[in-house]
């Protein structure tokens, strides 16, 4: 019987080695340990042995059974592992195939630009204000110190609704509205649509956007204007950006300036974006003219201020390299989706 057990164990070892699937291993388990299995048969046949022999043989038989069970489970675990590995192998996918994306919308490049500029200024303590697109001659011209016979007032330049009502040609009337509404200190920016009688072509649009800025307070100086706009340029175009202020003329500021920013494409060495000059004109600015402050009821002895205004389309076109302003208003989805 002992030999029998030995043989069973040896055979089991051999057969387990040859079992290459879980099914085979399971069959083997049934054959050895099942109700009709060899081990079961031997254990059953032990009833015919003497109590002494039975005890001894029982110990050996149980040990053999335990060993077979151990070998079986070891083999089955190994087979499971193999099977899992085979499955993982079979499940390999091509990770370079494109992802299945949820479609997200894209903001219009004009809005993106306005948002970026507004964000820079709100971080510097500016509030965002608005004014109507249909304006009065008073707010758009008179209150802004525009000479009575200034050519920009002509019907060839400005869209009129009546003699006194027009489509604003600039966001500057918001300056006056703000001055009339708020007491200094004032720090606001005003993005919005403007209109001028320009026939559409690659660089002109009868409707466009501006962002106006106004700061009024005690001891506001032209040095503050330079500092604020220089900080803005560095935030919008990067810390390397340099600014240059050139004298200019606007009726509603004095002294007035135009601000150039070092070309963000070539860094100032000269390229096609800056037309070789290394500088790009970005905005007009100046110290608010006392006449404008007076219209707003501001004490010009106590308070001074500065204002600035920039064309959003211009900034967007420069930033994104858009060569035709009309693309912005065609709203071709293939165009808009480029700005995600």
């Amino acid at each position, binding site marked *: 019987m002992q030999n029998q057990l030995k043989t069973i164990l040896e055979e089991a070892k051999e057969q387990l080695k040859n079992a290459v699937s879980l099914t085979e291993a399971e069959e083997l388990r049934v054959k050895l340990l099942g109700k009709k299995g060899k081990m079961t048969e031997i254990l059953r046949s032990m009833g015919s042995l003497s109590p002494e022999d039975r005890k001894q043989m029982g110990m050996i038989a149980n040990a053999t059974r335990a060993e077979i069970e151990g070998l079986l489970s070891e083999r089955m675990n190994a087979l499971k592992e193999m099977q899992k590995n085979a499955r993982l192998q079979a499940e390999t996918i091509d990770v370079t195939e494109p992802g299945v994306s949820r479609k997200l919308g894209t903001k219009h490049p004009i809005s993106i630009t306005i948002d970026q500029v507004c964000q820079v200024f709100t971080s510097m303590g500016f509030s965002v204000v608005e004014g109507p697109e249909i304006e009065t001659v008073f707010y758009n011209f008179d209150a802004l110190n525009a000479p009575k016979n200034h050519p920009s007032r002509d019907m060839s330049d400005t869209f009129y609704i009546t003699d006194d009502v027009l489509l604003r040609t600039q966001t500057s009337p918001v300056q006056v509205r703000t001055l009339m509404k708020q007491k200094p200190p004032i720090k606001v920016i005003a993005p919005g649509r403007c209109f001028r009688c320009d026939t559409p072509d690659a660089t002109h649009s*009868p409707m466009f956007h501006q962002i106006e800025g106004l700061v009024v307070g005690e001891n506001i100086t032209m040095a503050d204007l330079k500092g604020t706009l220089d900080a803005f340029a560095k935030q919008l175009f990067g810390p390397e950006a340099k600014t240059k202020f050139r004298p200019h003329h606007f009726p509603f500021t004095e002294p007035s*300036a135009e601000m150039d920013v070092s070309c963000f494409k070539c860094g100032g060495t000269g390229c096609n974006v800056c037309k070789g000059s290394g500088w790009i004109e970005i905005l007009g600015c100046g110290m608010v003219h006392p006449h404008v402050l007076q219209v707003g009821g501001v004490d010009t002895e106590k308070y001074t201020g500065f204002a600035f205004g920039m064309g959003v389309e211009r900034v967007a076109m420069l930033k994104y390299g858009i060569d035709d302003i009309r693309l912005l208003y065609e709203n071709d989805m293939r165009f808009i989706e480029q700005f995600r």
Partner: protein
Amino acid sequence: MLVPVQWLKEYTDIKVSTEEFCDRMIMSGSNLETVEEFGAGIQGVVVGKIVSIEKHPDADKLVITQIDTGKEETTQIVTGAANISVGDYVPVCLHGSHIPGPLHGQPKQPGGVTIKRGKLRGVASDGMLCSCSELGIEDKVVPVKHKDGIWILEGEYTPGTDIVEALNLRDSVVDFEITPNRPDCLSMIGMAREASATFGTPLRYPDICCKACAEEKSSDYISVEIKKPQLCRRYVGRVVKDVKIAQSPWWLQKRLMTAGMRPINNIVDITNYVMLEYGQPMHAFDIRNVKGGKIIVDTAAEGESFVTLDGTQRTLHSDSLLIKDAERGVALAGIMGGLNSEIEDDTTMILVEGANFNGDNVRSTSKKLGLRTEASSRFEKGIDPNLTEQAVERVCRLIELLGAGTVLSGTVDCYPEVYRAQPVYVRASRVNQVLGISLSASEMEGIFRSLEMQTEAAGDVITVTPPTVRQDLLEEVDFVEEIARMYGYDRLPVTLPAGNTQAAKTQKQLLRDMAKGELLGLGFNEIQTYSFVSPKGLDAIRMKEDAEGRKLIRLLNPLGEDTSVMRTTLLPNMLEVLARNYTRNNAKVSAFELGNTFINNHSGDGPLPEERDALCIACYGEGESFYTLKGAVCQLLAGLGVKEVCFFPEAEERAYHPGRCAKLLRQGEEIGVLGEIHPDVAEKYGIGTRVYCCQLNFDALYAAADHTKSYRPLPKYPAVARDIALTVKEEVLVASLEDVIRKNGKDILESVALFDVYRGKPIKAGEKSVAFNLTYRAADRTLTDEEVSTVHGGVINALAQQCGAVLREM
């Protein structure tokens, strides 16, 4: 304003390179457009003297010339020019020379042309004789005499001299951009004044001291009367006799050409020269044609006819200022002379006019007549009346210097009210306060004086009297600017404003940002379209004639019908954009626009109409349906905190499919409309697919938005799910079934969700099967089957009674 640098040097020294000159002029306030090199691109062209001209044996139109070009042997050149004679000095392009071109009868070549020797009809030609334009001189400034043919040089030259040297052709011409506040800079002296202050070099004025003939006075020949002193502040005249009309000397012609003017004859050239020099438009009359020796400055009679120098007959108005003689008009004041008193080749005696006309009047007349001239545009901008006298003197002095006539003594000068500059008090402390600097009063005086201002300082206060040409300097702030630009913007410190302000966006701005964010997240692209539209768009969307949106705000001067009215709805623009995308084969589009619409009422700000925020959302393409858009809109409303919005079937919105359109109501108020665009409308726009659109009144959303959120404890007890399928008549709305279910669910119905709508066998025609998933739950206990069954049974009964719903076997 074209400023030739060589000419400018006449009035002040410029010792720096053109590049540095430009850079520093920009920084002191004279912005510039371009710098052109006059006479650039000419190499190897010499002055030649024509020795002989012979006929070409084989060509009628060609001649063979022998030219002295300073070499031992003459140069043989074959030419087709007809205007040359023996003894003429001409520009000769020798073999290998380079000129800018364009060559006669050919288009301009970028980079110019190199001239090589060759044969013309068998005869060797060692180069080319050339014209002004072949040397790169613009047609519009080529002297009248040299317009056609070879350029015959005036004066004597050494043959073989380089043409650029001989004619002193090279000059840098700076095109300054003159802002409207600085008309004084529309002159060489004005720019020289700026340069002088910028570089600290003294300013030199031109010679205006006429020798004059003592025997005869101008007043012997002419008298002046100003009848409209408000339109003519000053009129100065001086008479010149023994005038000899001729070509101007080359130096004068060249200066005019570099400054962009065409030389004509000595008298006209001198008046133009002085206009450029002083900025004062000048005129010269042939005194033969000034009847009665009288100049009367008066307005024309309404409808009066007058022929200007250009030969055009013009009909004047009662406010057109006219220079008249004893009988008739002789010049249109400040705009153009009359044909009847023009300088002619045989003119021998002239009246030189320098006058100051009212800018507004000149502008209005010039506009009415559609006649804008160099003179009128200068008068429009405003000119110092004190310039008239100097300018007349200068014209006369130049006539003397050129030997073109004898100047009579004295002027006739009618100057009713002498213009004197007003002194202005400027506080040094104020200048420093505005600019953020700390200059002393005397440093500021130095700057003012460099600009020819008179100053007197007493403590902080500087009394500044500007020169009368500076009509832009009227109050303290104007002088702050003078200090700023001359001190240098680049030298001002860089600081940040002191004091804190709180940045804020308004609730409405935040809601707009939020709406955009939600829609972007839902996959809609943002579009931006014009605020002005075509009124035809309203017909295209079939808007009712009596709708509020038909009350349009019209532009008085639109660019065209397409942009002639302010939009009252965003829908036509949206459909146009969708159509454009559809035509361009963009198969699937989801887009929105958030923008202003304009309502023709005056409830807004005073005379201004109301501007209403509107939101338009649309989509087309595979997979899109009424329900996908509705789903997106519901998500948006939820995101904005707009609750309790109901959708009601709407068949009257004419832009939409009558069976696929809903009104959005909130607490009885209409906040928008959503539906499939009517096929007729889609067809009108050329969109060949179903389009879904939603228009929302953004102001109403703003009013309804409620962002309060409160926590509800998560359920502790299990839910019981019951599904029901009902057969109902087709016209029974899902919303009303849901409504009945909710009302009868007692307090244990947690949610109801539609999961199927089925039509077809075995359901009878005209009916549909609607299936819901009902979830029951109590917050404080596990529901018993019995409890649920009772409530559920009640729901089914109510559905049967109120909606005629029949329960289907599941």
